């Protein structure tokens, strides 16, 4: 009888070689599908910049013509371009943008009127809006996904933690807040280094513990996640483990939760769907028993 490890080594080598041969075709495809599509706003910004640059060049060109026509006149350093359509200085903010009390002051006008062309350093602080949680909101989980809108290209940080910012400036960051009232301040920094801050105050009240005498004593709490990632619609995961017989198990997250009760042998299992989970984002799922034990898992939805 040959050994399992020997067979495994041979079959592993065969598989690696087979993939090696197939890899040429795979790598010829370049980056994963959707890579380019995931950056539409970046492409549009590049195009917008190129368009703006072309308008400026057109203005400069016409000004040179004017200067050559009136060469006998005194030369001025202010170049007057011909009337031209307004040039959008920055891509428009997404339609979801809505100023709130926790908002930095937006610029009064985001367009550049026709007139003298001046090179000006960007000293405007980026916009920063917190859309979730609302001011003075009470949350039921200590794991909170803060979200908002900032200027595309800006970074948003809270201390050493950096938020995920998409190409449209939508940002989110998961933080764990303490019990009671907290004020969380975020800082947005644009590509020119200008910064602005915004704060939100929220309260976290943990669920009231169940009377310990009503539940049987004993049983170690364990919890496991089956998948951690799901491409089905709606996305789901199956959580299972052990606890004291009869213990109530609660699963909670920003995008869905569930509950179950450990059976007479202390085993429990439940399926939880995350119907509203955004594609590709990883968020935290907390599993608790009524004895105060908990375990936190990551989950990523790939439901298209």
């Amino acid at each position: 009888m040959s050994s399992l490890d020997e067979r495994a080594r041979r079959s592993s080598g065969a598989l690696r070689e087979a993939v090696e041969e197939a890899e040429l075709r795979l790598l010829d495809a370049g980056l994963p599908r959707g890579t380019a599509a995931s950056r539409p706003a970046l492409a549009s910004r590049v195009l917008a910049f190129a368009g703006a640059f072309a308008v400026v060049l057109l203005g400069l060109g016409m000004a040179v013509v004017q200067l050559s026509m009136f060469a006998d006149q005194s030369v001025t350093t202010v170049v007057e371009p011909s009337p031209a359509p307004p040039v959008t200085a920055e891509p428009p903010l997404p339609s979801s943008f809505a100023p709130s009390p926790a908002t930095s002051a937006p610029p009064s006008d985001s367009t550049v009127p026709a007139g003298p062309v001046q090179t000006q350093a960007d000293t405007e602080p980026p916009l920063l809006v917190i859309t979730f949680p609302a001011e003075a909101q009470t949350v039921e989980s200590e794991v909170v996904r803060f979200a908002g809108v900032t200027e595309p290209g800006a970074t948003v940080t809270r201390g050493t933690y950096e938020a995920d910012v998409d190409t449209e400036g939508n940002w989110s960051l998961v933080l764990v807040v303490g019990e009671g009232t907290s004020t969380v301040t975020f800082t947005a920094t644009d590509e020119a280094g200008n910064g602005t801050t915004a704060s939100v105050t929220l309260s976290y009240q943990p669920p009231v513990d169940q009377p310990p005498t009503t539940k049987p004593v004993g049983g170690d709490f364990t919890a496991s996640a089956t998948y951690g990632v799901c491409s089905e619609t709606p996305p789901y995961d199956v959580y299972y483990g052990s606890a004291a017989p009869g213990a109530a198990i609660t699963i909670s997250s920003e995008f869905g939760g569930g509950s179950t009760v450990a059976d007479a042998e202390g085993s429990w299992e439940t399926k939880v769907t995350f119907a509203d989970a955004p594609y590709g984002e990883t968020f935290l799922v907390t599993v608790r028993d009524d004895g105060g034990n908990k375990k936190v898992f990551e989950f990523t939805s790939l439901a298209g």
Partner: protein
Amino acid sequence: MRPTEELQVLARPESFDVFYAREFRSVVAIAYALSGSRWAAEDLAQEAFLTAHRQWDRVSGYDAPGAWVRRVVSNMSVSLYRKRASEARAIARVAFQRQEPLPGLELQDAEFWRQVRALPRRQAQALALHYLEDRPVAEVAEVLGCSVSTAKVHLHKGRKTLAARLSLATEETT
């Protein structure tokens, strides 16, 4: 000791392109071992890397981004395999069901991986990582997101079952 230049390179965050080019082949192999379909393996690996790409600012900061993407692809592969297997009677012509083998993979090797896939999911994942990538138990545990002792149990049970089904002897090396 590495040359100074190389250390400086390593000190900088790795670009996604470099990460993708280096890891893609290995991740496809894991996806194939656990899904049994070359087409599904390619899609699963692409999906896993796309997920990493979308969150690259965060993932690149992990100690082991390669372990993260392997965890994603191994979970996706097992999930897909289980789901498709349960739907096999109802869906007659799903591409995944055809179990397209990789060209060049002999029948006995394909059978080995088929038996791996027939194991409980965590055991299959542990064995694929252990055998395909020569990963020690600690690294298998890191990829699977479990303790070393749990990974040892998965490996032990998986090897024992696999040996019995393939009529092979085991050598307890883990």
